[in-house]
């Protein structure tokens, strides 16, 4: 491949944009073509993001991560918008593509027929996600957030139906308000600093006078409320379980990474803007993350125990995952952040697989099938669907056994039992909390660490109880009217792939953790990031073009 990595940086945004827009011209009858186009572009995304990941990691050289900067319009930084690729964004891009491909394949089973423009919405969601991970500009981040959210509104409502519209109204109203808060925060920060470039902001923030600092802090606080709503911190999270449970399975599965966008942005901006401040770990910002995260874990734990359906259970698992990440961020320790990044990847994959699996399990029970039937009727796909059932709906022998195995794997991941990566993730976080190697000055362990440990283990226990309860209910004593779910091979395969990815994470835990540690330490010492953005080389214009000016 002759393309330089700097030029490749924009590909994760362009590919889904072009592929998604092209599909608007195709009729919904050309679904095979659409599916092929989507699969093709998602595969391309996966290959490119792995390439970018290898580039940033400098092929295993730990100390020096490489950073690629793409200057849109070739303006000298800090002017105009730029895209910045470092280890963290490359990791998030790879995670997005790793999730997107199985989820897309899953949706080909039946869900992409349940409404119009599924593929376009899905690809535009990927574009928004990738853009949010890549951009180095605060306002551009807003734009990509909106792209992502607009696509997600469509995906929540995909398949229509009463439940989805009800959940969708709340979801959209809350996110519109969050967007307004985002704008207020950005405006305040711009008003104080006069720049929106993240690297430039990191340089200017330490130079701000005492009187203006308060305004900057309130801007940053309002901004983070917008991200905390996305991440689902208690008490901003009541919308999340209802929405995720109502959304169709493929949408919910890809939404598992959407709540991580909020986490990503907070992690990046907090350390970039305020990491220079030695008081930051004791400051109000970090404390809110810390205690808010603990409250979120508790709320999620109670919710997990109380949830009646598997969909809501998975929604509350998202909250537990978010809470754990927020608390780890609030501790502001490099080692804990590294563990949290590993946890982020592992839990996102597990929750995503769980959302897909739930739909298959509930298909055997009456509720989900009736919701689906309503959907198909509303869109006039009734006849087509029944035909499809007869032709492709072959019952896989031992379906229940396969589903049960996947369910058990999901449970092990979410609870954090060995041997899968969920255990390693929690173990790394906890050992970093108590390991004196990381901070040998610290003789006494703060109380909040004990609280964190207790809650982390309690949330695992609650998950264990809830999952064994619903597992027994679903597999061993199914309700009388339950039928053997009709499951297609291409619906089981993506779940298996997602779970195998966590197996790879487990087996390759050494190299992966070294990568996470390198990522975390460059996050906590962002000077190279700032330097590379501010001194990004501009492309030389070709000679004839210059002459015509």
């Amino acid at each position: 491949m002759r393309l330089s990595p700097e030029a490749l940086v924009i590909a994760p945004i362009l590919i889904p944009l072009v592929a998604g827009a092209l599909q608007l011209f195709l009729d919904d009858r050309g679904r095979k073509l659409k599916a092929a186009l989507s699969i093709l572009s998602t595969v391309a995304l996966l290959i490119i993001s792995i390439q970018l990941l290898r580039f940033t990691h400098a092929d295993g050289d730990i100390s020096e991560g490489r950073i690629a900067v793409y200057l849109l319009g070739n303006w000298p930084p800090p002017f105009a918008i730029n895209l910045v690729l470092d280890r963290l964004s490359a990791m998030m891009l790879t995670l997005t593509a790793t999730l997107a491909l199985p989820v897309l394949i899953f949706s080909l089973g039946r869900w992409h027929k349940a409404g119009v423009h599924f593929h376009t919405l899905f690809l535009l969601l990927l574009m928004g996600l990738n853009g949010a991970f890549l951009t180095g500009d605060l306002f551009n981040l807003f734009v990509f957030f909106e792209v992502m959210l607009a696509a997600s509104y469509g995906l929540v409502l995909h398949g229509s139906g009463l439940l989805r519209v009800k959940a969708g109204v709340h979801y959209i109203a809350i996110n519109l308000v969050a967007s307004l808060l985002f704008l207020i925060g950005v405006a305040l920060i711009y008003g104080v600093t006069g720049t929106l470039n993240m690297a430039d902001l990191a340089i200017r923030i330490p130079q701000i006078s005492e009187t203006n600092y308060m305004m900057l802090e309130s801007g940053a606080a309002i901004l983070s409320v917008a991200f905390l709503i996305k991440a689902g911190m208690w008490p901003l999270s009541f919308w999340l379980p209802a929405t995720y449970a109502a959304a169709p399975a493929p949408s919910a599965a890809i939404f598992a990474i959407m709540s991580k966008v909020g986490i990503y942005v907070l992690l990046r901006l907090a350390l970039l803007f305020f990491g220079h401040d030695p008081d930051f770990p004791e400051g109000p910002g970090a404390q809110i993350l810390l205690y808010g995260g603990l409250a979120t874990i508790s709320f999620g734990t109670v919710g997990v125990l109380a949830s009646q359906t598997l969909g809501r259970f998975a929604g509350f698992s998202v909250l537990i995952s978010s809470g754990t990440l927020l608390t780890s961020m609030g501790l502001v320790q490099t080692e804990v952040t590294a563990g949290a990044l590993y946890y982020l990847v592992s839990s996102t994959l597990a929750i995503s697989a769980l959302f897909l699996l739930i739909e298959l399990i509930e298909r055997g029970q009456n509720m989900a099938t009736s919701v689906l039937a309503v959907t198909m009727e509303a869109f006039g796909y009734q006849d087509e669907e029944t035909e499809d059932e007869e032709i492709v709906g072959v019952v896989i022998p031992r379906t229940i056994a396969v589903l049960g195995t996947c369910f058990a794997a999901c449970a092990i991941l979410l609870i954090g039992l060995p041997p899968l990566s969920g255990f390693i993730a929690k173990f790394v976080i906890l050992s970093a909390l108590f390991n004196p190697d990381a901070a040998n000055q610290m003789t006494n362990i703060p109380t909040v660490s004990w609280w964190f440990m207790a809650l982390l283990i309690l949330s695992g226990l609650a998950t264990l109880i809830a999952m064994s309860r619903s597992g027994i209910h679903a597999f061993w004593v199914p309700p009388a009217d339950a039928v053997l779910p009709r499951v297609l091979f291409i619906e089981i395969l993506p779940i298996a792939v997602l779970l195998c990815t966590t197996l790879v994470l487990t087996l390759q835990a050494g190299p992966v953790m070294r990568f996470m540690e390198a990522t975390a330490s460059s996050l906590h010492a962002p000077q190279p990031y700032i330097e590379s953005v501010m001194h990004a080389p501009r492309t030389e214009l070709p000679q004839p073009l210059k002459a015509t000016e």
Partner: protein
Amino acid sequence: MELVLSLSIGILAGSGVWLLLRPRTYQVIIGLGLLSYAVNLFIFSVGRLVMGRPPITQAGAQIDPAAFADPVPQALVLTAIVIGFATTALFLVILLASRGLTGTDHVDGKEPDR
């Protein structure tokens, strides 16, 4: 001028928040509209309020930045208006769908029990 602007932002934001917390979908969407006006005016105002100064400079010439208005908030506010308009329109469609499916304009999709 500052007083008029800040008062109008305050009134718009206050009425917007109040309407947003009302139980009818129509009130919610009007509230969101008012709030977005307030936010747009607010973004505009962070570029400082000036009169009679153009935001566009001449190419090549040596200029005094103080003689020009800040063009960035104006660009930002344009983007925010476009995005806000699009998402509000989308929301309106969903509110109509909700009205059609549930038969009520309550935000919870059903009338509260009395």
